[in-house]
């Protein structure tokens, strides 16, 4: 703190009470300057985009810190350094996102065609074929998972918010937390271990995949529904009770309609969470080349598993398999990403239309 309090007793001229301030655009100018210098240095040493980026960041952070320390004092200097680091962290996080989207788009788009969506892989060697069977499989497996998870998850949330008192509710809350952390591959093993009991070793079927996905989906549904039900003001419930409405009708007619927008959003996001899951389906759904619409009979291809196997075992020539893998990855990513805005639209549609909001 010595720098803050000027000492008037010294013989030297007292330091200024306020430090100078750098002009507003200094950080930008320093950034441009370090970019120019790093491009110059790297074109001398050998052109490398990553090298330029790293050097630019390093130069920028050193330059702005030193300049600011000199003009504005050490505290401002540290502040400028942290600001640059924080901006840098965000820029760094954008790199993989941009690179991922670019890689998937550039490698996946050429393989997309009408046939890719309408054909299966039955009898296909080399080029051609499509993912119709995988899309159908994904929709069926995820659909059944939703049919299992949504009622259980929603009713459990209602239990926790509206009825839950005492030890049982505490245990359910705790175990939902535990379920949230179950790794997806463990959920897959669980579904396998469960179905082996009924169908014998080596069982592969779509329904087992749905059970595995439900284990992952139920805690998400419970958590989000619980949050939404808690947001419903108690006055609404009390007003309903005061009118003599029984508790269950209050829940069905007052509480749920008030919370339905948030619940629908949570459910959509929980579907987005499981629809891209690969590991459990790899274990219990397996892979087949033809269309299978029977959830309880035999292997069923899903989009993520198809993507994985198209890359891991591409066949001959391998390029055809790789191309299919990227196109399927593009379709899968698009589906998952599209579910996020869909969730927003759903929440908008279901939002209770009360005047004055």
């Amino acid at each position: 703190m010595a720098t803050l309090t000027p000492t008037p007793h010294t013989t030297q001229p007292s330091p200024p009470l306020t430090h100078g301030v750098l002009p507003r655009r200094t950080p930008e100018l320093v950034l441009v300057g370090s970019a120019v210098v790093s491009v110059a240095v790297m074109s001398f040493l050998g052109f490398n985009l990553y090298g330029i980026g790293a050097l630019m960041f390093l130069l920028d952070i050193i330059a702005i810190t030193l300049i600011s320390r000199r003009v504005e004092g050490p505290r401002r200097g540290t502040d400028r350094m942290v600001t640059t680091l924080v901006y840098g962290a965000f820029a760094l996080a954008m790199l993989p996102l941009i690179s991922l989207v670019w890689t998937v788009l550039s490698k996946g788009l050429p393989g997309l065609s009408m046939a890719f969506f309408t054909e299966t892989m039955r009898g296909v060697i080399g080029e051609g074929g499509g993912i119709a069977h995988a899309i159908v499989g994904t929709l069926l497996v995820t659909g059944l998972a939703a049919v299992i998870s949504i009622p259980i998850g929603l009713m459990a949330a209602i239990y926790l918010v509206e009825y839950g008192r005492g030890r049982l509710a505490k245990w359910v809350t705790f175990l939902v937390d535990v379920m949230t952390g179950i790794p997806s591959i463990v959920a897959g093993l669980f579904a396998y271990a469960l179905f082996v009991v009924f169908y014998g070793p080596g069982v592969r079927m779509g329904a087992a995949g749905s059970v595995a996905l439900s284990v992952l989906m139920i805690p998400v549904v419970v958590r989000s529904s619980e949050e939404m039900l808690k947001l419903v003001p108690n006055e609404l419930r009390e007003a309903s009770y005061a009118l003599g409405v029984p508790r269950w009708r209050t829940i069905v007619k007052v509480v749920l309609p008030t919370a339905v927008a948030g619940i629908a959003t949570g459910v959509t996001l929980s579907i987005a969470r499981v629809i891209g899951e690969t590991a459990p389906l790899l274990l219990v759904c397996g892979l087949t080349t033809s269309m299978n619409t029977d959830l309880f009979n035999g292997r069923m291809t899903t989009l993520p598993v198809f993507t994985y196997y198209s890359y891991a075992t591409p066949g001959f020539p391998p390029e055809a398999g790789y191309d299919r893998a990227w196109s399927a990855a593009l379709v899968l990513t698009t589906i998952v990403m599209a579910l996020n805005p869909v969730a927003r639209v759903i929440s908008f549609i279901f939002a209770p239309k009360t005047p004055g909001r």
Partner: protein
Amino acid sequence: MTQEPTSATTGAALRPTRKSRGDAIFAGISKSAGVLILAVLAGVALFFIIEAWPAVTASSDEIPEGKSLLDYCIPLVYGTIIAAVLALLIATPVSLGIALFISHYAPKRLAQGLGYIVDLLAAIPSVVYGLWGIVFLAAQLTPAYGWLAEHVGFIPLFAGPASATGRTVLTVGIVLAVMILPIMTAICREIFLQTPKLYEEAALALGATRWEMIRMAVLPYAKSGIISAAMLGLGRALGETMAVALVLSVGGGVSLNLISSENPSTIAANIALQFPESSGLEVNVLIFTGLVLFVITLAVNLTARWFIARRAEFSGAN
């Protein structure tokens, strides 16, 4: 807490039996949904133990690779932990930076949109991360690994020989770090935003710079939240399967070397790679490793919850 409407009112008095029956049924249904969740978890534990038991009792020459169960598990556990810890070491500072950027640095109007962009990373399926890791990232990192082995090879971590494909445990750590960034950022961001405005304004009023304000007001308040975010991220990284299965080039046992092509596999990736071709006792062994993974992630997640619970007690927010 008796919120039951009394039957003194006329409307309710007309149908008391129907009312109580409907209530009983509805309460029963919702309660059984809660019980079902208990049953599912009990089932997970039970079926796991049933299916894993043959592996425990089997003699060592029946286990794949002819080792004892312990020797089979140790490299896998080591690989799992090293990959996850690498991911955590990379992701923690970056996610703190992003969270601070969104909560305290970015212009207010942009902040929400930027948060949404980071959340997009969470929407990308793990198999796509795997493809990206093996095709793009591994190829880009190969020259860097060669450089590391050549110049800082005296550090055991970079001893080399460097992998020619880039499919190393360090690449896996980076891919996992990207995958756990969104969840860690989201939690840190929420907690940074919850810092009482009064603390922040008090710090600024005393003449603190923005960084000093963050160091004195925001970070102490968010400390346990940051720890729990890191633990949850670690839990995710431990259980991540497909990215590791695709990217990692497996071979050899426990080794400190991060950039060679001989890496111990992780539990999850090993299951995904071996399970489809396994039968008989091999399946039981894999299920046993799954049980080990379950226990590890459970311990990590419970620690995270413990930190969150402790914070809720002390924060005074409730």
